[in-house]
């Protein structure tokens, strides 16, 4: 059974139910029930027409639920009519769904959960597992989100930036449990590029593909982090890189630069370098300058300081770093790295320990502690 196929049909099926008159909240529940049913019965008894099957089952689930409702009489009129899907193209439905699930009235965690379920076709259990929360908690988060957006009127298109932020969040979560959120984010972003023509959507897809291409080399078999410079570049996924670069070039050619295209350009320059030493750091610094103009984010300026350190030497990097607030996350880790490159292992080791103390996750903490240990071991020899 092709679970990805079932999932990719979700927005279409939801759109058809909507055009038959089902409200979003009930329709989404019905589609979810149909998906769960499909996962159960398809392995033994695959349908010839997957979409038709899902529409039929979801519509029946919807009717079962609404029949039991107090508004029985009104709904029975609906049953009798059982209207055919309207003339509107399915493309509009899918895009509308993306905007609805990323609506600004939703908190980021709700928007992410709703997008994964209503657009992505994941089950509540899968989403709960991916975010390490109890299934009942995730179910509640999703139904609250649906209630919030059910009041939203959709006469105008939404802001595509809100959708991109949600997809970016999903991608960054990586993977835990049996659902690969990074792959799912790529699938959803790719699907979005099919329904909206926007250079930043392409930019985000390129960014995801370029980062995904390096995934297998980012962690050692024991789970420890492998920094970019030490990754085995022969194991990078060249197909994914080629696709990312091609999408990025087409987007950049349209001359409407945005932050995702700029980030993808930086990722592409790393992907282009056959060895870490051959990285074009001068161009990377230029892209960080563009990015800083677009976002004014302190994190971007921190990353720029690292790039300056590579392009113009650690002293220049430290000078760039000195201009930034030292309470920024990873500021100390960057300082440690630049001091090491500048030939100050004692200062670097002390800063690595300090950075490990402030690390936001275990993998980074272990990595930074290891860096300190490496320098201390070398010095005591």
């Amino acid at each position, binding site marked *: 059974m092709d679970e990805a196929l079932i999932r990719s049909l979700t927005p279409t099926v939801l759109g058809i139910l909507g055009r038959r008159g089902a409200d979003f909240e009930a329709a989404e529940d019905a589609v979810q029930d149909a998906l769960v049913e499909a996962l159960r019965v398809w392995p033994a008894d695959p349908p010839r027409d997957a979409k038709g099957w899902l529409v039929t089952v979801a519509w029946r689930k919807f009717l079962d639920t609404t029949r039991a409702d107090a508004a029985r009489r009104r709904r029975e009129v609906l049953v009798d009519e059982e209207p055919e899907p309207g003339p509107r193209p399915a493309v509009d439905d899918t895009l509308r769904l993306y905007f609805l699930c990323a609506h600004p009235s939703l908190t980021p965690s709700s928007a992410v959960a709703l997008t994964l379920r209503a657009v992505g076709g994941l089950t509540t259990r899968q989403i709960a597992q991916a975010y390490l929360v109890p299934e009942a908690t995730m179910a509640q988060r999703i139904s609250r989100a649906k209630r919030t957006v059910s009041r939203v009127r959709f006469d105008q298109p939404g802001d595509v930036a809100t959708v991109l932020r949600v997809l970016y969040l999903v991608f960054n979560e990586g993977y835990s449990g049996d659902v690969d959120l990074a792959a799912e984010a790529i699938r959803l972003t790719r699907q979005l590029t099919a329904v909206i023509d926007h250079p930043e959507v392409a930019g985000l897809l390129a960014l995801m593909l370029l980062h995904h291409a390096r995934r297998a080399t980012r962690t050692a078999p024991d789970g420890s982090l492998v920094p970019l410079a030490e990754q085995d570049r022969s194991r990078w996924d060249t197909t994914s890189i080629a696709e990312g670069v091609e999408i990025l070039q087409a987007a950049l050619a349209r001359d409407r630069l945005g932050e995702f295209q700029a980030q993808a350009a930086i990722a592409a320059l790393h992907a282009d370098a056959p060895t870490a030493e051959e990285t074009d750091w001068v161009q990377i610094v230029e892209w960080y300058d563009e990015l800083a103009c677009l976002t004014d984010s302190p994190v971007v300026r921190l990353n720029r300081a690292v790039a300056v350190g590579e392009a113009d030497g650690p002293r220049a990097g430290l000078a760039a770093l000195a201009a930034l607030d030292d309470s920024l996350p990873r500021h100390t880790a960057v300082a440690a790295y630049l001091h090491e490159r500048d030939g100050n292992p004692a200062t670097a080791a002390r800063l690595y320990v300090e950075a490990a103390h402030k*690390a936001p996750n275990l993998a980074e903490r272990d990595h930074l502690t290891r860096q300190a240990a490496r320098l201390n071991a070398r010095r005591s020899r």
Partner: protein
Amino acid sequence: MAKYLLLKHYRGGPAPVNDVPMDRWTPEEISAHMQYMHDFATRLEGTGEFVDGQALAPEGTFVRYDGEGRPPVTDGPFAETKDLIAGWMVIDVDSYERALELAGELSAAPGAGGKPLHEWLEVRPFLTAPPTITE
């Protein structure tokens, strides 16, 4: 079955026997330690005794209610706080003896020189739901 919390402290408990900070270990010793912890959790999953394991950042904040319509008061982090929890593992085992046995194994994780840390872990039973049959 009963659940136990195995608590690891940054400070507050007695000092471990092999008391060398991790940044003074060799990178290989750190790897060996990580591998041991990972294998331990995997083995407990295999025996059906693992429930959860989490690590905490070293710095926290104390917070309390400050009355109607006022934002909560925060205090800390306190450098001098005696007790500081580093992380925990929750196990679900058949007996208290088994909980002690597992805590002992976890405490034997290798440290500097590849020798066991002998670090002190705190074992705390969970308070459970009341049983169905009470008489």
